[in-house]
């Protein structure tokens, strides 16, 4: 029956070339840990993606409870952590996942670097990868403020004073992300918007470009 439904849709939309493009390709021997155990280093990109998906899903559930204003933010996180069924697990996944994704991304970057995979013709994908790296750091930075506890608040104050010390542009950067003179209500809503809409949007676009280029060029050959 599924085949019937598939054929019915395929006849109208011609989806076979699309999913073939995405899914139907081969995994060469030199990146397959089943053949060479050392090839596990090639898994870090996929693992990064796996955890990124976890981050997006757990983050979506977090926003069902989180309230981005200075009076309720802390209380809503507290409520989620201690009162909501499985809330601690959802928050735990997002919290530890944020660290894990950085670790995996770091290992992936090292793999690409030390196998020289960033060389021609894959220069553009490396640059896109580095942009992803910065977006990820930005996500970590903005997410850190959201629970609005003392740790969040004072770390953000430090970050902003560092940003402010940049010559010429510093004060403007500070006003832009601070939304005023103090770390306060404006900062929290701004960080929330950046963390939940701006950066994930940029991340998805960059990931799209990343995967498109990988599929186009294939994985780099054996050393």
């Amino acid at each position, binding site marked *: 029956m599924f085949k019937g439904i598939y054929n019915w849709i395929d006849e109208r939309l011609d989806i076979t070339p699309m999913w073939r493009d995405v899914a139907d390709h081969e995994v060469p021997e030199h990146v397959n840990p089943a053949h060479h155990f050392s090839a596990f280093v090639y898994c870090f990109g996929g693992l990064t993606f796996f955890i990124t998906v976890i981050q997006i899903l757990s983050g979506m559930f977090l926003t069902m409870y989180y309230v981005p204003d200075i009076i309720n933010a802390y209380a809503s996180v507290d409520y989620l952590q201690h009162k909501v069924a499985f809330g601690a*697990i959802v928050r735990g996944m997002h*919290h530890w996942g944020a660290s894990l994704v950085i670790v995996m991304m770091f290992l992936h970057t090292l793999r690409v670097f030390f196998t020289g995979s960033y*060389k021609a013709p894959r220069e553009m994908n490396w640059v896109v990868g580095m942009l992803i790296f910065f977006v990820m750091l930005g996500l970590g930075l903005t997410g850190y403020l959201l629970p609005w506890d003392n740790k969040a608040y004072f770390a953000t104050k430090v970050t902003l004073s560092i940003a402010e*010390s940049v010559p010429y542009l510093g004060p403007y950067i500070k006003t832009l992300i601070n939304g005023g003179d103090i770390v306060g209500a404006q900062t929290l809503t701004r960080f929330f918007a950046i963390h939940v809409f701006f950066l994930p949007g940029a991340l998805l676009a960059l990931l799209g470009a990343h995967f498109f280029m990988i599929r186009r060029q294939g994985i780099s050959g054996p050393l």
Partner: protein
Amino acid sequence: MALGHHNDEKIVYVGDSRVPKRNLENVPPDYSAFPGRSEAFIPNFLLKEWMVGCVALVGFLVLTIAHPAPLGYQADPTNAAFIPMPDWYFLFMYQLLKYPYVSGDYVVLGTLGIPGVAFTALLIAPFLDTGKERRFYRRPIASALMLLSIIACIYLTKISWDHYQHQLELTGTTPEHILREEKAREAAEKAAQAGQNGGSAPVDPADLPLVQADDPAMSLMEGAGCLQCHAADLKGQGSVPALRGTGDLHSKEELVDIITNGQNGMPAFEGNLSTEEIDQIATWLALQKAPTE
């Protein structure tokens, strides 16, 4: 009908769409052109990956249950004693900015100079290292620079962390998220004991109603500054306890003593308030008991 197709076109479309009509069955792709023992991504490889992924996911869930995500006390901008600490992956930058030649007058070097050069170099690495050679041991300069940077980052991170631990020790601070968990555990133990003694289920004192809320003692307390710490609604904040329900914890004499002589973080009010005023406040606080149902 402007989009209609002419019959003499070679390609036949599905209806008036732009999707060409095919009679071909789906042909499985042929990988014989690729050397080595390659394997189809879907389903063979992905299936194995998913199995490994499931194991990893379970491990990850166990971690989140064993180590709940930390949460301290609500942000208090007036808290001057708090030791700021960024997330661990920013520590190398945080530490770098503490060294004399990249802070103070030279802070530009620390914020833009070193990180700027390092990250720009990373960003445009393919255009700096343009040789054909891919093996890292044949690219000594690139590999050495990368290794050195990694070592530097690990070193800075470790120094920064040790410094933080040292500061905690010096100031005798317990990180708030740990403090909070400990308090919660103590409260839970107390509640369990009360439960064994046939007591009723415990309520958070902050949830209790105020008894005789319009008593003049309230304005006395406001004048004395109690509300700054114990919150305007007497529900407490951070590590300062709620004063709702104090009557269940302390007798009037004890309350007089706490207010007169202070206790831990609670300052003494002897001299600031007259004995009568303290008496008046203590009398009223002693009335703050949970309602008996």
